[in-house]
């Protein structure tokens, strides 16, 4: 599940210096890159709508306001679904839940992946070997089938969905963070901090974490994209919460309830476009942060422009 598998571990470790004036690095990235501005704009737009959903929804999401699969009209610009419910309202509400699932799953994945990466990279030795072996196995086992099994066994609910997705997404983060921590650990200031007797916890939180923070954030943004993508896939297979409206379940219901034979394109197309836009927004933003952190990647011929939603395993560092 590599987000950008071309960034091998050595390469990830080679660069990454937090720019001077660390507190403002994020806004510097935004100011310098048009792509980052577009990405942030798209993401901000959807987040704003998700936050304001209860107030800006034109109709209720359980309220029949017209005929089944009513076509788009002035009152309902995106038409009605199979229950005569306004599609615009459904999309707004669905975005809210989809984004919550996406961000929550990413948060959990970052805690697991970041935690494992930091512990493995900082302490090294047998702990590193064991943790990375586990990560390797999880990298190779195909994501979606594993998610299906776990979701089928656990039963459908939003919380389960979040944990299932998180379970799939931590591996890449763990590998990237580990590589980075391994390199930060050898820096002089960390050695100096250790020599004056600071505790490991303090070194990790005060000296290591701030250095890998930006990378972690870039990784987080890219992971959100994958989490939302996985949410639609799992919901589509009927493994989401049947009572919650998400972009995935909108597509699922349209598929199951003959939207296609009714010619109701408006019940399917907008939801998928929303998903795609959020994913592209995440990609543009995440990529800009990575490029800013890692100027080496920006040099013309080293500039990798790949990312992965469909999983690709990161190669083991030694074999390349």
């Amino acid at each position, binding site marked *: 599940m590599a987000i950008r*598998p*071309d960034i091998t571990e050595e390469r990830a470790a080679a660069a990454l210096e937090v720019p001077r004036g660390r507190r403002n690095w994020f806004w510097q990235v935004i100011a310098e890159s048009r792509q980052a501005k577009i990405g942030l704009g798209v993401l901000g737009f959807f987040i704003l709508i998700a936050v304001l959903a209860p107030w800006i929804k034109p109709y209720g999401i359980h309220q029949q306001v017209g005929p089944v699969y009513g076509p788009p009209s002035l009152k309902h610009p995106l038409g009605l679904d199979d229950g005569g419910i306004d599609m615009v309202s459904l999309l707004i509400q669905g975005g809210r839940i989809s984004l919550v699932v996406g961000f929550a799953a990413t948060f959990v994945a970052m805690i697991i992946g970041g935690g494992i990466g930091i512990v493995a990279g900082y302490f090294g030795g047998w702990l590193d070997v064991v943790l990375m072996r586990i990560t*390797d*196995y999880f990298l*190779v*086992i*195909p*994501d*979606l*089938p*594993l998610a*299906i*099994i*776990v979701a*089928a*066994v656990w039963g459908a609910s939003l919380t389960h969905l979040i944990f299932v997705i998180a379970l799939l997404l931590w591996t890449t983060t763990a590998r990237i963070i580990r590589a980075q921590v391994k390199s930060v650990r050898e820096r002089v200031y960390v050695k100096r901090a250790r020599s004056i007797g600071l505790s490991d916890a303090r070194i990790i939180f005060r000296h290591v974490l701030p250095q890998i923070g930006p990378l972690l954030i870039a990784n987080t943004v890219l992971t959100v*994209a994958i989490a939302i*993508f996985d949410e*639609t*896939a799992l919901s*589509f*297979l*009927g*493994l989401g919460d049947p009572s919650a409206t998400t972009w*995935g379940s909108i*597509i699922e219901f*349209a*598929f199951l309830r003959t939207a*296609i034979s009714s*010619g109701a*394109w408006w019940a*399917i*197309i907008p*939801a*998928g476009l929303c*998903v*795609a*836009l959020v*994913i*592209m927004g995440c*990609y543009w933003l995440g990529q800009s942060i990575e490029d800013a952190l890692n100027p080496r990647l920006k*040099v*013309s*011929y*080293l*500039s*990798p*422009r*790949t*990312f*992965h*939603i*469909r*999983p*690709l*395993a990161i*190669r083991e560092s*030694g*074999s*390349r």
Partner: protein
Amino acid sequence: MRSADYVIKRAGFAIATIFVAITLNFFLFRVLPGSAVSSMARVPHATAALRHSLEVQFGLDKPKWQQYVIYLQQLSHGNMGVSFSNQQPVWSNLRTALGNTIPMAALGTALAIFIGTLTGVLSAWRRGTKLDQVSTNAAIAFYAFPTQWLALVLLIYLSGILPSHGMQNDFLVNPTWWEHLKDVMLHMTLPSLTFALTLYGEYTLIVRSAMLETLGEDYVLTARAKGLPQRTIVIRHALRNAMLPTTTLMALSLGYIVAGAILIETVYSWPGIGNAVYEAVQQRDYPMLQGAFLVLTMSVVVFNFVADLLYFKLDPRITE
């Protein structure tokens, strides 16, 4: 012996991964609330004796580790249990399904590799131009579209023109071999096309970044200084070397095609392994689900292994 060491190492990892998957597969289903017995004994007047005899019959009275050993033994004889829904051995169900999936997925992947390589090379060659921007952004967009959504969109616009359901026309009476082949190929068009479209974006991005890297190498500069024509430089010097990382990434993604197969086959009712997974989820057919997970994991592991060997063969610099 450099090569023997390497092959043994990778083979060992592959076998260990399969073993981890088998173990996961066993324990995930054992944490299910209830067991096969509790649902089968849900008949009027079920006595404790009936329950017990069922438990003995299924071996559920034995301790977990013993059940695990039995599971491993049976699996090594190719016994994956019996499907709940059609009472056939899981393995024979899966074998048929796999046979239907492979040609469809292979056709789609071949198409994706072709389009992806072409657009990736063009993008890198014309880096920074309008053509590059259009092609790269199209690749990102196709990558961001949810697979099942893209399949549904194609269904909306092409279902009148191309067959959209199943693998053959059941009303074809006594077709000749040629007619049958034509019929299947027609049915295969939409699923394969969806496959190609969802995958090609990823390949474009991979090929482009690999090409950009090789185009910046010194030997390309030398070729240019020698006055070789552009075409020769791009194809003979840059592309040949760019195919090195590209081949492995593509071979790797072949294994993960199974995830796409689940979503695409569900939409088009293609009677392959993906559809089998979907139906097993719908009917809570756990033996089928377990079997399908194993088969899918094994295919991924095998493709990983092949990718490793391929890379090793292509790149003599690998020494591990």
